[in-house]
Structure formats: structure tokens, C-alpha cells
């Protein structure tokens, strides 16, 4: 799509594009290219010699138990975050969409957590779940649950999932609410007259009409859980205990920044890029399909 009427001139548009393109090339394409190039290189232990190893870094990764562990963690973490954040948001949006007193206030009180940084959300939940100072953490201890997320991997995973999902609920809530409000009232009234009770109306009419929104949000939530939750993990567990909460993105950081294993870190970056490209492609294909409703 483009305009029929335009301005003439060639130098000016290039000039207008220069800032955006300069930033894009210097900080996006150059590093991305470097990542691809580095992913085919390997340095020796002392950083003295670098050799070209083609796909060996990738092959090593797929044979590396720690990397596979991180991949598995990412799957568990992302699907849990997405399921929890989507489920809670859908439930709350359906409630807030009803014509009840105070609906506006409820809405405002439900959307503000969007503004909380993931890392900050982690710190807030730490105050709740900390085994010695946290409200819930101590309560667990008091009733005899051996609660310490710093030692127990499963508990650590539960906690990062809760903190990461908590922050994302607001975002999903806003979109679900917008989706609900875009369903014509008369369609719901028609269903009521056809005899459908609220529960049935939800599953046979509202939910199917909401499914495009839900699918869009699923992709967004997965991207969020993959990439934006670095702060949650870094602030709460640093990938531990053991490697119980080490996700792919966290491992890139650990291998690149702490272990200085550039070749492997770059290969991991490339894999992540492929994942984002795939997710974005799915999302765009779906947007094209969504037009029909």
C-alpha cells in the first residue's frame, strides 16, 4: 500500500532516513553479522588463537547436556508463563467486561503492573517468597513445607514463573478486554435469546470469537518469556540452583559475559534469532488470516 500523491526529491528522503538507518546498521546488522561470523569460530583457552570451525559450535551445543537442559527449562518456563498469564488475564477480562458497578476502577487497578519492570517484579515477589523474610515463604515454613527456592530447583522455577507471569497479566488483560468489547452486543444477545446460558455462551460464542486475540497473545507471551524475562531470572535465581532456572537467553549471557566463550555464545545467539524470526513469521501469517473475522 502506498500513497498516490507524493513529494518530489531524492536527497531529502535519504537524509530523513539516515538516523534510523545508521542506528540500525551499526547496532543491529553489524552485531548480527558478527554473531553469525563468530558462531563459526573458536578461540583457544587463552584467547591467543582463533580458528574457523564452521558448524562445530552448533553441533557441540546440541550435544551439550547443559544446553539441552537450558532448552528444556525454556520450554517449561515459557509455556507455564504463557498459560498462567493468558489464563488469569482472560478470566479477569471476562469478569471486568460485565456490567457491574466499579468496572472502571477495577480496570485501572488491574492494568498498572504492566509498568513494573520484570526485574522489579522479581524483587517484589522475592519479598513474598523469601524463606526468612517473605510472608508466604515463612508461612510455608511454619506449616512444615521445606521452602527455599535458593536450594530447591522446582521451587525456584515456580517462583520465576509466577513473577514473570504476574507482570504479563496486565498486558494480556488489556488485549482480552479490547477483544471482548469488540464482540457486537447483539451477537451475545442473539445467543441469549437462542437459549445459551452465560457459561455456554462463553465457550461457544465468546471464546471462538476471541481466539484470534488469544493466538496473537500466545505468540507475544512466548516472545516475552523467551527474551524479556532475563531480568526476572537474573534478579531472583541467577539461573540456579544448579542450572534449574537457566534458560536459553540466560545461558547466552553466562557463556558470553561470564565464561567468555564467544564462539558458543554467538552460536546460541544465532539459534535464538532463528527462533524469533520463526515466531514473528507465524505472527504475521496469522495477522493476514485474522482480517477475515
Amino acid at each position, binding site marked *: 500500500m502506498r500513497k498516490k500523491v507524493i513529494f518530489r526529491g531524492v536527497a531529502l528522503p535519504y537524509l530523513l532516513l539516515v538516523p534510523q538507518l545508521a542506528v540500525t546498521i551499526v547496532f543491529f546488522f553489524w552485531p548480527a553479522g558478527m554473531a553469525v561470523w563468530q558462531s563459526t569460530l573458536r578461540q583457544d583457552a587463552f584467547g591467543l588463537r582463533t580458528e574457523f570451525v564452521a558448524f562445530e559450535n552448533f553441533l557441540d551445543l546440541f550435544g551439550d547436556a547443559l544446553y539441552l537442559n537450558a532448552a528444556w527449562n525454556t520450554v517449561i518456563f515459557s509455556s507455564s508463563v504463557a498459560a498462567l498469564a493468558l489464563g488469569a488475564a482472560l478470566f479477569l477480562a471476562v469478569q471486568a467486561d460485565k456490567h457491574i458497578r466499579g468496572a472502571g476502577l477495577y480496570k485501572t487497578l488491574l492494568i498498572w503492573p504492566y509498568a513494573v519492570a520484570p526485574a522489579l517484579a522479581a524483587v517484589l515477589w522475592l519479598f513474598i517468597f523469601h524463606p526468612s523474610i517473605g510472608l508466604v515463604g515463612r508461612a510455608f515454613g511454619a506449616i512444615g513445607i521445606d521452602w527455599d527456592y535458593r536450594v530447591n530447583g522446582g521451587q525456584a522455577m515456580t517462583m520465576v514463573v509466577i513473577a514473570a507471569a504476574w507482570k504479563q497479566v496486565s498486558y494480556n488483560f488489556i488485549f482480552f478486554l479490547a477483544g471482548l468489547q469488540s464482540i*457486537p452486543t*447483539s451477537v451475545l*444477545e*442473539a445467543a*441469549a*435469546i*437462542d*437459549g445459551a446460558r452465560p457459561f455456554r455462551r462463553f465457550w461457544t*460464542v465468546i471464546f471462538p470469537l476471541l481466539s484470534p486475540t488469544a493466538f496473537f497473545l500466545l505468540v507475544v507471551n512466548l516472545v516475552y518469556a523467551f527474551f524479556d524475562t532475563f531480568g526476572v531470572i537474573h534478579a531472583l535465581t541467577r539461573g540456579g540452583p544448579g542450572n534449574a532456572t537457566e534458560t536459553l537467553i540466560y545461558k547466552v549471557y553466562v557463556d558470553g559475559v561470564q565464561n567468555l566463550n564467544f564462539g558458543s555464545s554467538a552460536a546460541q545467539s544465532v539459534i535464538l534469532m532463528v527462533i524469533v524470526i520463526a515466531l514473528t513469521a507465524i505472527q504475521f501469517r496469522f495477522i493476514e488470516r485474522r482480517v*477475515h473475522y
Partner: protein
Amino acid sequence: MASLDIKGVQKSFGATRVLHGIDLAIADGEMVVIVGASGCGKSTLLRIVAGLETPTSGQVMIDGLDVTPLEPADRDIAMVFQTYALYPHMTVFDNMAYGLKIRGLPKAEIRQRVQEAAELLSIGQLLERKPRQLSGGQRQRVAMGRAIVRHPKLFLFDEPLSNLDAKLRVQMRAEIRRLQKRLAVTSLFVTHDQVEAMTLGDRLVVMHEGRAAQVGTPMEVWSKPADTYVASFIGSPAMNFLPATLVDGGAAARLSGGTVWRFTDGARPGGEGRPVTIGIRPEHLQQVGADGLALTVELAEPLGSETVLHGRLADGTALTARVPGVAGQEGVALAPEPGALHVFDAETGRRIDPGH
């Protein structure tokens, strides 16, 4: 099939009262059209009957049962919406079958009923399509079909034709009437279009500012409008109103310009000098010789077989006349057809019939 009784239904939204106590009894199999300008409360009344709104006071009775506290699902009614309100994610078949599935009818019977309705509406070949693949007229038919398959006690129509183009509207109008007669389902039809109201209804309810201004057959409402509002609302072009006073013991009216018109249907009560409003439909004015009411023509609209003349009387009152043939002169002299005069109280606007 059932009767519908609306008893003293009032509705307020906050401080705004939109219905001031409506009473209406609809017989089994009858089609009643509620007509009125937008904001007169006609849709609210329909939605109260459907159970989509709760009345502030009053009752809705279907077949003698008070259904006021019941939800729409428990009233056994079907409704056709202005926007059709088809389920966008379901096929035409599923749209029509939805209400039957909820009621737990056997699959075979659902299929049979949908087929029947589809045939009746000639949409049999569309059953596998989604609503977005249909034209406006087709969607309209599906919405009708969804109502028909249910075999409900009551059909409710909320301006179902207003989203169609003019030609299709006339066609669907006839079709709705034909179907309603054939199925003999009690129906309530809401519209703002007086032609639709006149052609569709066994009876009309003309609503004005939350009240039923008149209830009657189309011909009653047209020939004996209860007040000036109904008189001006029904009929096109609209009725002319002329200020006048009763003279000759109520047997005639003197218009403000001095012309005296005699009533052929009897004297009006109230006596000499009572201020009244005389109503005369444009088509009931005839061209006469020089002794008629002189109209200075400002605009002549030729319609072929007849001409609509817009002009002013000597005292400046605007008047419209519909006369046969071609008439485009600068001035014409007019007189009313016998028995065509309507008399209304000048203050209240209520109709004044001949006294005994």
C-alpha cells in the same frame, strides 16, 4: 404460537424516563408493528419483551404467563436484529441450528428443521458458508431462518430491513409478511419507516416520546389519526395543518385566511369560535375554479402521473398538494375532497370527532 400482553410497562434509565406506561394486547398470530421516530422508546419496548432489558414497572405476559422476571432463554421467543447478529465463526447451518442444539433436539430433527427453513427462504445452497461470504440480503434471510427454525411463541423484529438497499427492502418486506402469515406466529415488528409499518402490520402502534400515541389498523391510523403527531407521521407527503376556528355552530371551520370549509361528516363539538387545527392530506386537495383556496406555487415536483405542489397561502402558511396530471402553474385554487378534513384541538392536538 401465543398471545402477548404488555401491561403498564415503564422504563427509566437513571432520571430519564423512556417509556411512560405502555399497554398493548396482541392476539395469537397477529403481526403488530411499532413505528416511531428514533428515540421514541420503540426498541426499548421490544427489548423488554425479549427480556434483554428489565422494565422499571409493569408486566410482560406471554400466553397469560407473567414472564417479566424470566431471562430471554426462558421466554421461548426469537428475534431478528437490525445488524442480523449472526455468529461470525459459524456456518449458516450452525447459525440456524445453534438454538436447537442448546435445547438438546435430536440431530436428525435439527437437520430437518434447518433444511425446511432454508428451503422456505431459498438459502439451501448457502448452508456451508460463513456469514462473511454472504450478501446483505442473504444474511437477512439467515437471520430470519435462525428465528423460524426455533418454532418460537413470538417473533421479534428490530428494524431488520434498515440495512438493506431500497429495492431489496421492498422485496424482503413482502417476504416477511408472506412468511408470517404462513407460519401464523405472533409477531412484534419495530421500524421507523411508516411505509413498512403500513404494509406489514395487522395493527400499528405509533409511538411518540415514550407513549403509544395510537393503536389501530393501518387504515384506522391513516384515516382517523388520534392526534397531530400521528397525522403528520403517517402518510407521505405529510398532512397539511392549517389554523382555524369553528363557525356555524361547529359545522364549518374558518381558516385564518378567511376561507370557510364545511364539514360533510357532521358538526364538531365546542361551539362557535373554538380554536382548532384543520388537517388535510395533500392528496385530498383538488384543483377547483376561482373560488378555491389560492396557493402560490413555489415548487412543483412532477412525478409523472401526478404533481406535488409546494407553496404558500395568502397569509404565508405553507401548504402541499398532490394533484393529478401536470400542474406547474404559478398559482392554483384548491378545495378539499368531501369528508377529507381532520379536526384537531388547537391546544392539545387531539382529534375532534363529530359530536352527536
